[in-house]
């Protein structure tokens, strides 16, 4: 595998990857407190009536730097409507707050989509062994909540375990409704193959298991995403390079998007996310893996903090059998384009016209 296959490869040639050299502004001391204050005043003037409750909550914790940052965050605009300067201010504010909170220099990337890039993903279901290394790598990379209480533990990837199913002579005469004298079943009631009704809480001694196959599932980054359509505040939207993102600071937590998603890709932060300092990944993207807050929705974003800098998403990198392929759909030589050209591919729930950019294929 060479770097050429990943999207933004051309751009990445000039810029070093984000994780190697953090942006210059990562130093919290270098960020500008002046702008924060001005923002504070400006916002206070125009939006004073907008939210008394939030104000009350913030007044309670006068942890000055943090409170001021959160106060200013409270009045910032939808990310897409921010000017470049406002984006910079928001970025600095977050970097400062996160760095203080997690006790290490945290960078918040705001790299925009690269022209000529449409990200795509392909997964070889024949190869997947159900080891779930992708699930764990994703959690480590993307700062998901790791709490113990139900709902506090968030994973974006589910590896569905599916029975291979078996047909047998004994089942020849089985069938519901039994005892009525009409046989309508038999072996027909044996599940087999991909039915998208799987179990992801499996715990075998070793994978792959003999009687099962596996189908990983996560956000499909649809070209016609139903979640975007139902969002009442347009906080979730499709970026220019095809990734569906969420501005966590604008999300009102109405959960309409979760109802609309046919792939159950979205998760809700029911509590303040549990993210231990030492486990926090300090290389973040504003629309990607930066730490989230209570009451907002999150989901897979194909590791924007990596993929916009010419690197593979964490799940692709970690997959031990190479089942996961990622690249630029507009580049005919990218791995994912070659898969589409040469393999049999299918999309999940294609009948819903969501047009996922996540393809399944098999050898």
């Amino acid at each position, binding site marked *: 595998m060479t770097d050429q296959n990943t999207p933004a490869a051309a751009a990445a040639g000039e810029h070093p990857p984000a994780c190697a050299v953090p942006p210059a502004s990562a130093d919290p001391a270098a960020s500008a407190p002046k702008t924060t204050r001005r923002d504070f005043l400006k916002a206070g003037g*125009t*939006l004073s009536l*907008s*939210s008394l*409750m*939030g104000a009350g*909550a913030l007044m309670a914790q006068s942890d000055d730097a943090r409170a001021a940052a959160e106060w200013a965050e*409270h009045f910032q605009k*939808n990310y897409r*409507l921010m000017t470049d300067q406002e984006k910079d201010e928001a970025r600095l504010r977050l970097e400062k707050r996160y760095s203080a909170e997690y006790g290490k220099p945290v960078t918040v990337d705001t790299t925009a989509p690269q022209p000529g890039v449409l990200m795509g993903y392909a997964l070889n279901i024949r190869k997947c062994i159900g080891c779930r290394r992708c699930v764990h790598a994703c959690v480590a990379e993307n700062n998901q909540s790791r709490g113990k*209480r*139900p*709902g*506090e533990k*968030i994973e974006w990837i*589910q590896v*569905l375990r599916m029975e291979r199913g078996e047909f047998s002579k004994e089942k020849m005469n089985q069938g519901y409704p039994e005892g009525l004298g009409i046989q309508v079943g038999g072996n027909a009631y044996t599940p087999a193959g991909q*039915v*998208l*009704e*799987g179990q*992801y809480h499996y715990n075998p001694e070793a994978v792959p298991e003999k009687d099962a196959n596996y189908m990983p*599932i996560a956000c499909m980054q649809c070209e016609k995403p*139903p979640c975007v*359509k*139902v*969002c*009442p*505040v*347009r*906080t979730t939207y499709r970026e220019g390079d095809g990734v569906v993102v969420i501005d966590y600071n*604008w*999300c*009102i*937590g*109405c*959960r*309409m998007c*979760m*109802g*609309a*998603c*046919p*792939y*159950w890709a*979205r*998760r*809700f*932060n*029911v*509590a*303040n996310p549990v993210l231990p300092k030492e486990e926090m990944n300090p290389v973040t993207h504003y629309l990607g893996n930066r730490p989230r807050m*209570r*009451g*907002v*929705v999150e989901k897979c974003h194909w590791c924007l903090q990596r993929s916009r800098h010419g690197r593979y998403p964490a799940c692709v990198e970690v997959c031990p059998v190479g089942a996961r392929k990622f690249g630029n759909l507009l580049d005919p030589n990218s791995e994912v384009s070659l898969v589409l050209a040469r393999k049999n591919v299918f999309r999940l729930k294609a009948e*819903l016209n969501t047009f996922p950019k996540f393809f399944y294929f098999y050898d």
Partner: protein
Amino acid sequence: MKQLTRFAADYVGYVLRGGTKFYAWMGSLGVLIIGMMYVFYLQNTEGLIVTGMTSQIHDGLYFANLVFLVGVAAGAVTIVFPAYVYHHEGMHKVAVLGEMLAITAVIMVMMFVFAHMGRPDRLWHMIPPWGIYSFSSMLGWDVLVLNGYLILNLVCGFYYLWVKYTGGQVNKKWFMPLVYVAIVWALSIHTVTAFLISTMPARPMWFHSMMPIRFITTAFAAGPALIVLIFMVVRKNTKFWVDDSAIKLLATIVTWCLGIAIFLTMSEVVVELYARTEHANGLYYLMFGLHGLTSLVPWFWSAVVLMVGAFILFLIPRFRNDMKLLPIPCVMAFAGIWIEKGMGLIVPGFIPTPIGEVTEYYPSFVEVLLTLGIWAFGFFILTILLKGAIGILQGEIKYGAAK
């Protein structure tokens, strides 16, 4: 202007005075309201983890009540429509009470919206010019029509009361068109609420075009059933007399809307369970349970018993015509629809999840208390609004009478 301040002062002065029974009623509601405020605070500091909702089943008791109460708000049109379109005399006398109920129900809906949100502090993000209004979102439309309905009812209701207060004449030139708009608007609020959940192919249980008409028929059964009960209370506790003719017409409306609602439910059961595709899993879970999980089964069957039982009782003349017995089927219809359209519709929509996971939802104490508190708040403002309206209709609040 002077008249207006007098009106406000007279109105407030009148509604705040009352007997021991009044203060006891308002006081006990107040206790629940204080409880609600505490759990709302808890929910917005701890997060929705204090509720039973999860990423699998992320709409629960709050959303169920929200949907149901939009129906109650729309149900007020069952008074306004006969009053102004069919010029039904008994109804005309009480039309303004229907508007007061609509105002209350919409306010309760908005409180449930606040309870449901993960970030109620950011609700202004929906409101231009500070926020963004999304025309593609059904929730955006729902907020729009609900607020419109609230304003229409506030204007129509209080203008009518104001005219009665000053002793003038209703200016029909703009009042009547506004009433007609409000009638159509009532249908729109519940239709849009139905669209809220029926436009998601990801949730096959909701994804059918029967949803809006089912919402409207259940609303026009539950709404008037509640109104009949309220009228009974009003007749008992105030000097205001609601005509039998009005109550009987409402009972007839409840009967036939309930009948249609039962028919629609039966049609759904036949269509879904005959073919029994995976898309019927939600309904199957509701009726019989799935993979051994059966927490909603008793709810569904009790709703069936309540609704069918109420329908049969309504058809028996002895129940229909006896004002002492009529509240029984009304309570049954109201409770049955509350279950069927609330927990019985919202929760199984998430079971199984789109990837086939079957989990269950149990409302937590916080959710129950918050829900009770919002209902208490609803009854609190409804008492005030009805008291003020009845005082004006009775001529006890009148311009110049105070001195």
